[in-house]
């Protein structure tokens, strides 16, 4: 594909970044996995992956990545948060109230209602807000299936570009300017997911 833009996948010690890197490799993007704030500031685009507990985001503060990420996003550098990385874009999460999110989007992440099993694991459909004209979801068919695995979900905000249903409607994808977030795992969502990553790579 793509341009010569370089994408940094931010490694803050939470989980397994291999599959995200592998998916970008597959679509021909140039990626580097890094835990260095300088690298984050030097590259063209940033991906913040992550699975697991909101408290693992604490590591961003420890190594100075938080400031670099905030600086890059406010400068308009394309940023994609995946799963926990998307949740970080909000003010915080009830999963761990001591850790502050970036506060780029308003609201806090909450658990699913007790009427449904938690975690929410599996393939769920995306209802895309076509009015919103998402760049990240360009070319993705309405009701496409994507793979989720999470216990907490982000609130619906004005910048929500797609929702999924699980006991309630929650934000599957958000987007404002060059800042994007997806609660699902595009790297595990087959061709649909690869198309989304390609859209990000081609911004």
């Amino acid at each position, binding site marked *: 594909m793509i341009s010569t833009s370089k994408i940094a996948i931010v490694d803050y010690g939470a989980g397994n970044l291999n599959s995200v890197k592998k998916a970008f490799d597959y679509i021909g993007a140039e990626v580097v996995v890094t835990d260095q704030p300088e690298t984050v500031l030097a590259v063209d685009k940033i991906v913040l992956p992550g699975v697991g507990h909101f408290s693992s985001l604490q590591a961003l503060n420890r190594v100075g990545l938080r400031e670099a990420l905030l600086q890059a996003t406010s400068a308009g550098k394309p940023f994609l948060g995946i799963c926990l990385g998307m949740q970080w874009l909000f003010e915080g999460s009830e999963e761990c109230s001591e850790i502050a999110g970036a506060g780029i989007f308003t609201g806090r992440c909450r658990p699913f209602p007790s009427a449904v099993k938690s975690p929410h*694991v599996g393939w769920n459909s995306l209802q895309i807000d076509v009015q919103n004209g998402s760049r990240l979801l360009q070319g993705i068919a309405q009701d496409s299936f994507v793979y989720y695995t999470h216990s907490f979900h982000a609130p619906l905000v004005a910048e929500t570009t797609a929702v999924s249903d699980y006991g309630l409607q929650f934000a599957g994808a958000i987007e404002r300017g060059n800042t994007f977030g997806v609660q699902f795992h595009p790297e*595990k969502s087959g061709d649909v997911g690869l198309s989304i990553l390609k859209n990000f790579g081609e911004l």
Partner: protein
Amino acid sequence: MLTKRIIACLDMDGGRVVKGVQFKNLRDAGDPAECAAAHARNGADEIVLLDITATSGNRETLLDAVRGTARSLFVPFTVGGGIRQLEDAEAVFAAGADKIAINSAAVREPALIGKIAGRFGSQAVVVAIDAKKINGSFAVFVAGGRISTGRDAIQWAREAAVCGAGEILLTSMDRDGTQSGFDCELVRAVAEAVSIPVIASGGAGSARDFIEVFRDGRADAALAASIFHFGIENISQLKRELHDANIPVRWPC
């Protein structure tokens, strides 16, 4: 709407897939990477690679297979067989697995579940339970079903969830290989006892069996190996039948 998952399992011995290998148009039907890719093309929601190699000491063979399979697979990929400690799990994740399945080692050392989950997240830890009905209750077996632990499967599933398991892969030893249907009684008992997803395994023989284990067994996912060349031609056809029976599945996909 969250869909019910159909998971294709590849049993691997010495680096070669030994069941469910009768794909047409594969250059090498025993190659795990080719089998996994073929299942994914046909609509498998996930792939499980289970190393059933009897002898130990050839971890490199497994890791090579994991690397080769993961390279161009973009659906969730679970690897099980012979993971005894955190270091084994780390190697399998580094080779490209998204989740690991542990069975005997988790029974021996339940804390291992939390150790792996602490490092890689609960979503990455599948606890596999082999259960057999004895005197009206379900007993847990380990070591490939050879050794009875005297533990109750439903209680063990609860404990595994508390320890940090992300999913339970529940195999009925009574049904495994029989193609006489999943053990819906077992699956339902466990599915109602834990809040984490339960993957039903053992006994798949027809689309009807899948419908029953989703409806009556309350399974979140169902796994099969050899079925996909006995009676049901491929996963795509199975999913169409499930869709027609109003079971939510990722179809078309």
